[in-house]
């Protein structure tokens, strides 16, 4: 009888050991899943880590009808409100910086390479003084800028056109608008100013 009990205990231990080993194998496979999934490419994996959503390169529409590939977007908790922004460069490799402004969604997105590093809710021009759409390289940058046209402070200004349209810090509130500039929250403007250089492209999609 005791020998039988020992046999059963041994068998149970063996089963448990096998189960643990299988679990380890399965776990390792699970860890490899996100990397292995793109190979199949029929069902691309989307990985969310709380900061950004990563996926296979997907085309993002640009104003001229072309697209640019994007591999990750920042994760926001639901819809952003006026004055909200998000910025995270963590783990994003160096690459060319480009900015995409979507007037219809009232959003700006800053990309480095194929990864989004910043996003914010924007203000844009009124119907009478609309924000121009299209592609613009950044012509000039200035931390302290005072609009001589409107006698107003425009910190962290990134000029886009030769007639003065720029991206700059402003009080981003619901119901507000600009005279053609793109207004972003000041803290976001500081990040943006630090991220871009003269000549970096800014794409503005129409409202």
């Amino acid at each position, binding site marked *: 009888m005791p020998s039988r009990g020992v046999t*059963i205990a041994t068998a149970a231990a063996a089963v448990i050991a096998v189960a643990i080993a299988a679990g380890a194998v399965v776990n390792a496979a699970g860890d490899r899943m996100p990397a292995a999934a793109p190979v199949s490419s029929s069902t691309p994996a989307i990985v969310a880590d709380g900061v950004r959503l990563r996926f296979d390169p997907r085309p993002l529409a640009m104003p001229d009808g072309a697209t640019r590939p994007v591999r990750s977007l920042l994760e926001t908790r639901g819809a952003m409100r006026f004055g909200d922004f998000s910025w995270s460069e963590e783990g994003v490799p160096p690459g060319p910086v480009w900015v995409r402004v979507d007037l219809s969604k009232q959003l700006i997105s800053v990309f480095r390479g194929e990864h989004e590093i910043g996003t914010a809710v924007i203000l844009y021009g009124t119907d009478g003084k609309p924000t121009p759409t299209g*592609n613009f390289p950044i012509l000039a940058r200035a931390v302290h800028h005072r609009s001589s046209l409107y006698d107003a402070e425009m910190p962290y200004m990134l000029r886009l056109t030769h007639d003065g349209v720029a991206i700059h810090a402003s009080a981003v509130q619901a119901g507000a608008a600009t005279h053609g500039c793109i207004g972003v929250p000041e803290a976001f403007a500081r990040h943006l100013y630090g991220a871009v250089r003269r000549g970096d492209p800014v794409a503005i999609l129409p*409202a």
Partner: protein
Amino acid sequence: MGSNGAKGGGRRRWTGMSQRTRRRLAAAGAATLLAVPALMVAGHGTVVERALAAAIADPASILSARSPGSRGAAGALTQTKLKQTKPRYAKSGVRRTPGPRERVLGQARTRPTGALPLGDAGDPVIGLPLDIPAGALGGIGDAAGPIGPGVVPFGGTPVTGIGVVGGGGGGGGGGGGPTDPVVPPVSVVPEPSTWLMTIVGFFAAGIGLRRRRSATGRRAAA
């Protein structure tokens, strides 16, 4: 794991079974146990992610989800600069001449065009500096002369309609695709092996308890 573990009436049934049947049952139980994590992984890999992929069809939909919505006709014409400029005018004693009915910014000054201060713009006549990925977003200005070495595929994956001209200075291409940053995704759902360990642990505890109980019962009987 069979002979000892049984409920009151079950014991007779268990002991009544042949050794072979018991073994078969044990094997079936183990197989079920082992199949659980495999099923979970399968579900994790396909069902969940497929649902997620369907929900997030393209990047634009993610952007739409975070957007505060489009600006309606209503709230677009609020004055923003007047509050700042009003006290300044009051202090200086300058009378504001009634300008055009501008409801967004304060009084616009009339000044000759072309005399705008350009900050650190340098010479605007030059246009694009050399390190601009010209045409990266489609034709900016005159895209007649591509500056870079040629069309560089972005990230190693062909995407329609993108002609990215590699910027001068080597920064543009980024070496044929940026390496994915290694950030292990932390899932809310416990790993399959965690589940497995939990289940196995419960089984082990149960077996241990049953064995001890039956052993003491035998000793008492003897």
